[in-house]
């Protein structure tokens, strides 16, 4: 099996499994006052400190959640409610057009149910949000902006946006700024302190921790309304008994991922560049999407368009060869739709449908790239014959 879908989820790190299983064997609610509770609480707080250290945040800024989607929802809705309560005019929500669905669907819900006015910030052809675009959008009516959210690095094409500059633009108007850093943490340097962001989403399972675990970093003093009500365990904005094993494993994974990152990122970028070069040699008219290699691109992501192919045909054929990758976006019925990210980057619909994301991670090796390169040419040839039936080849100008 050749797993080239680490951006979807990546295998748990051994140190995370060790921390997880060790904590699973212990009883104790971190909110209890007795000895078992104190033991659990110690694990949680040490983990909080470790995660904060890895992300250059203060321990008190870490709010543990059940994953990236919950963190995004808490940030978007919590900031909207809190800032609108403080000033009812604030109804504009500015987010990039290439956000993950956890952001987009949350803001669309606010528009539908909570009277928000959503504005999607355009991106350039590489998928980057420019600070002047944000500045212009805010300047149209600064007092009416409730919040801004721009993802640190895009989950499909891997392009990195200048988060510190964008946060500074928002702060120039006193507007709260959130970033979804789910793909960035562990892949590129992420410092909450230096970013200037008011809130930052991180997920455990993208960096070798368990699924169902995440955090929202929330700057001290930031007004944030809760999504869920209950015991108020996490700074009164997130209720629910803390998942002590999950927290411990998350911190262990994040600590390793961040400390290994400088070496690992270089290794993955070289592997990725090799993958792209050899796929292009096999399929010369393939088109590479996203930012050019370098600090503006996640090291493990290669996103390519294969003109004349349907992405789902490519997936099926690669899967039959034991190669697992992704088209990047699917609706709840499993139907492949053209990616909203590619469409926002100006890629035409036919090309958007014929695109694949290969994402490398900790367990990726040269043999994985070799396996892909061995089959990509015949696979693309077959997918093209299938694509020609639906008239795709005529529409795909590249």
């Amino acid at each position, binding site marked *: 099996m050749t797993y080239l879908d680490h951006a979807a989820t990546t295998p748990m790190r051994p140190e995370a499994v060790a921390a997880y299983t060790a904590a699973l064997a212990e009883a104790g609610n971190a909110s209890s006052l007795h000895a078992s509770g104190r033991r659990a609480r110690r694990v949680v707080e040490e983990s909080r400190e470790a995660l904060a250290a890895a992300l250059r945040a203060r321990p008190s800024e870490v709010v543990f959640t059940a994953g990236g989607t919950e963190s995004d929802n808490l940030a978007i809705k919590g900031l909207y409610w809190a800032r609108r309560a403080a000033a009812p005019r604030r109804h504009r929500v500015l987010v990039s057009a290439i956000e993950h669905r956890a952001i987009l669907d949350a803001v669309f819900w606010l528009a539908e149910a909570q009277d928000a006015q959503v504005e999607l910030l355009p991106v350039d052809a590489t998928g980057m949000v420019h600070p002047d675009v944000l500045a212009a959008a805010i300047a149209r009516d600064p007092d009416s902006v409730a919040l801004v959210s721009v993802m640190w690095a895009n989950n499909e094409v891997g392009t990195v946006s200048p988060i510190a500059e964008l946060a500074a633009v928002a702060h120039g108007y006193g507007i709260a700024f959130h970033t979804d850093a789910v793909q960035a943490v562990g892949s590129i340097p992420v410092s909450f302190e230096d970013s200037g962001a008011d809130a930052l989403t991180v997920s455990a399972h993208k960096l070798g921790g368990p699924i169902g675990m995440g955090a929202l970093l929330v700057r001290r003093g930031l007004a944030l309304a809760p999504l869920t009500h209950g015991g108020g365990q996490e700074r009164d904005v997130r209720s629910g008994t803390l998942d002590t094993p999950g927290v411990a494993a998350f911190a262990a994974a994040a600590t390793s991922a961040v400390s290994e990152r400088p070496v690992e990122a270089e290794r993955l970028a070289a592997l990725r560049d090799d993958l792209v070069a050899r796929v292009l040699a096999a399929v010369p008219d393939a088109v590479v999407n996203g930012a050019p290699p370098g600090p503006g691109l996640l090291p493990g992501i290669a996103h390519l368009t294969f003109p004349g192919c349907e992405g*789902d*045909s490519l*997936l*099926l*054929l690669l*899967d*039959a060869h034991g190669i697992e990758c992704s088209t990047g976006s699917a609706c*709840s*019925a*499993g*139907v*492949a*739709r053209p990616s909203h990210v590619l469409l926002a980057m100006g890629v035409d619909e036919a090309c958007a449908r014929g695109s694949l994301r290969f994402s490398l991670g900790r367990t990726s090796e040269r043999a994985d790239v070799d396996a892909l390169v061995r089959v990509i040419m015949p696979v693309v040839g*077959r*997918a093209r*014959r*299938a694509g*020609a*039936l*639906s008239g795709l080849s005529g529409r795909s100008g590249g």
Partner: protein
Amino acid sequence: MRVLAAMSGGVDSAVAAARAVDAGHDVTGVHLALAKSPESHRTGARGCCTVEDARDARRAADVLGIPFYVWDLADRFEQDVIDEFVTAYEAGRTPNPCVRCNERIKFAAVLDKALALGFDAVVTGHHAQLSGAVLRRSVDPDKDQSYVLGTLRPEQLAHAIFPLGDTTKTEVRAEAARRGLAVADKPDSHDICFIADGDTGRWLRERLGSRPGPVVDAVTGETVGEHDGAFAFTIGQRRGLRLGRPAPDGKPRYVLDIAPVTATVTVGPAEALDVHSLVADPVVWPYEGPVVCTAQVRAHGRAVPATAQAVGDELHVRLDEPVRGTAPGQAVVLYDGDRVLGGGHIRRLGAGESGSGPRGAGRPGF
């Protein structure tokens, strides 16, 4: 062989896929997404076009341990089946969308894509027997689906596998339960999958709007009522005519003919519905000279003794016993015993022996 199993989420296609696995094929499951914006849950007994059906199909594929994908054929389905359905009704015909879907989607768009991707055949859960190029009825007469497959061409059948033809539906359900397939007791789908509430007249009215016209009595020539869209009627229909006055003989009247250009709906007595002969566009008819056979003209109808003969580009069918309840646009499928000989789409009906109905232009010649 590498085969593609079309999995609707129902019990038949799940067991068909399972049998293909047992037969040693390398099976890949595919659910065809045919609805533009699928409902998330079934509201009726439709069972093929919702997200829940896609999940049922995925779960069955997981139980069988085969790869599973969803293919989005909503555009093709809209073009080739739904639009054609509307156009046919608009033109006064009564189409059979299941026949059309088999001809254009399952054994055309899907099959072509499957072959291009390196598969050898498409497996479906249709109740029919296929060996070599010979298509036969299912052993279960109540569930036999050879009629909706009867217009498939030999090159389409050459790449089709129907594993369920030797098994009754009851046995299929029992087998699904034995295999641990959760869809074992899922209700049968029926009617037209894309008309959610089964109300074809209302569905057509929403698409076509109001097009009023007269309802004329075939016997007296009088206008006996009005309607707001001839498309809402099918030949043989009795209910919902809302006629102002009773027929002279006091007997119920039925729709005999629909003339879309003048928006005229002609009604008359039941006897006038008798069809003694018909003319079809032959889709599959490799025979010269008259062939003594039986003819079936609707999905769950009885086959009646008939003689069929190619005449020019037409297939003329003389029925030894009159049939009712068929209309231009339906398929006629011709059998020798339980074996499908061929078939086509009914272009026009031959008038009854009494000559009482103005139904279609010209009578078939023998």
